[in-house]
């Protein structure tokens, strides 16, 4: 496999911030009018823009990310089917730029999930009971261990979460998938020859 090209991620320890809404789509995570950028930097300022700010640009005090307890939280716990809708990778870019490193839900949309893993944002799907408990207990401290794919709750209970082996390998070792694909070039050329 190819050399490490990004920061390895082995452990995430943080309090949670909770957004209980189901079906939070990528248009909410970052509205389309902010996608006319040609870079991936600085999108955290626009994360959840239309939920986060009033029309005049001042923060809405009733939005969770604007509340003091959300400060420095790296784990977002959300309702089911998080990240549905548009394939915009700007959504995980915005979450990461803001400081979120893991998203927990009972369901995470396919394209958002794939985009997240490629950027080092960890999508964690949990069962209804655990996810429900986390939704009901905002701000709890979680300990996520990527090497063992476990999550430890504040009472010490430890629970496994599913993570595809290759994705885990890439995250833990800081491997960029492009490097892996480039290492397959001979096979790709062979495939092209046999099909031509």
């Amino acid at each position: 496999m190819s050399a490490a090209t990004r920061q390895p991620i082995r452990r995430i320890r943080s309090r949670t911030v909770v957004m209980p809404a189901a079906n939070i789509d990528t248009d909410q995570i970052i509205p389309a009018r902010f996608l006319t950028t040609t870079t991936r930097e600085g999108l955290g300022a626009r994360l959840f823009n239309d939920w986060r700010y009033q029309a005049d640009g001042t923060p809405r005090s009733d939005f969770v990310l604007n509340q003091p307890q959300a400060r420095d939280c790296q784990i977002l716990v959300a309702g089911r089917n998080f990240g549905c809708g548009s394939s915009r990778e700007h959504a995980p870019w915005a979450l990461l730029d803001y400081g979120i490193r893991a998203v927990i839900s009972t369901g995470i949309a396919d394209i958002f999930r794939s985009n997240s893993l490629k950027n080092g944002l960890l999508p964690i799907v949990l069962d209804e009971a655990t996810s429900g408990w986390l939704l009901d207990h905002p701000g709890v401290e979680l300990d996520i261990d990527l090497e063992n794919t476990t999550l430890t709750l504040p009472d010490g209970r430890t629970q496994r979460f599913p993570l595809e082996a290759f994705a885990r390998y890439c995250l833990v070792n800081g491997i960029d998938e492009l490097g892996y694909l480039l290492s397959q070039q001979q096979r790709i050329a062979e495939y092209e020859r046999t099909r031509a």
Partner: protein
Amino acid sequence: MKPRTLLEKIWDQHLVTPETADTPAVLYIDLHLIHEVTTPQAFDVLRANGLKVRRPERTLGTLDHSTPTRTEQIFGNAPITIESAANQIRVLERNSVEFGVELFGLQSDRRGIVHVIGPELGATQPGSTIVCGDSHTSTHGAFGALAFGIGTTEVGHVLATQCLLQRRPRSLAVEVSGRLHPAVTAKDLILAIIGRIGVAGGTGHVIEYRGETIRALSMDERMTVCNMSIEAGARAGMVAPDETTFSYLEGRPRAPHGAQWDRAVERWQELPSDPGAQFDREVTIDASTLEPMITYGTNPGMVIPISSAIPAVQNDAMHARALDYMGFSPGEPIRGKPVNVVFVGSCTNSRLSDLRQAAQVLKGRRIARGVRMLVVPGSQQVKRDAESEGLDRVFIDAGAEWRESGCSMCIGMNGDTVSSGEYSVSTSNRNFEGRQGKGARTLLASPATAAATAVRGKITDPRELLP
């Protein structure tokens, strides 16, 4: 040999390296469609790593998402007012030259929405793998292709290697039987399917739409159905190729010709799922009882027949929040609700047959006072075809605006937006909060329903205005 599904056949044919417990498959991509919004950062990665586009001839670019639709901005001297959007267009123009990729530029007569031009050119073909940095890439599955949306990192992967790392998705058969009533369209059918299986019902799956109702649909209609697979959570939707598919493709500029055409059709005829092939899940839908459908909430699964009342759902904060955003109350009929804007367009419903459907309702009528109606063809080809049969006159005479092609008011990136608080009946695919502009309230419906609503200025069942 074990009976295989259409998905399995395409999957197997595109394996460069099969998947193992530890590694995903390396899947070869036949056609990579690119546009201005989700590619700049991918080309930057290539540049930073000294990489080339591996297969420029399998890559096709267009300008659609943040591109203006006003004629004077495309063909005249009027500037593009959103500077960042203008920059995005310039960046793709530069990247396509630097990396040797074909781009249908602003004034190209083949430019259009990425999911409209692929099929129109015959570049979208049965049995192929097609990707694009856009979730509505599922549209191309109508031809019996495996087509799905990817993110910008994956756009970079495909540019550099013509491959993606993928796990094989599960399969979901949606079996549709019964005849659609007149004025009940493919859009109504897919909205009903989404209402039935839910906005996450297809997560992790590729949908194969099957059954007599699907077989009876035209290619335009199949594209409308496959387009919104993602709104049911499925990354791809597909329909097995048949005579309808072949006769659509025959003679198109990028379809095979002559002896190659015959060989291609022979190959394509092998694609449909074998009798007895196993799907991971199956759902059946009776199309004969469907009415025109319309959404009332803030996701496409919040959909009802047009004659129905807005549902009451107890103890559901999301439902309450959605109704609050929309300014609706449970129990109110959706028919008769006043609207401000009507949009006919988008990769869901901007092909010639969609415009004909809207024009059939509008012919000889005018849109209601105070309603703004935008008709945006899916491509410059659709625009020419529509104009050659006089549809543009029908729209303009009715009081609608007739524009150049692009995504326009579906996503509102180019300045074509709905104002905060306004109601829009839109033939597009997403009614998310703010999708058509900050604070915009979107109701998704068919072109016929949209046109009927424009005429009356309030939500109208198109059957009231059709002969």
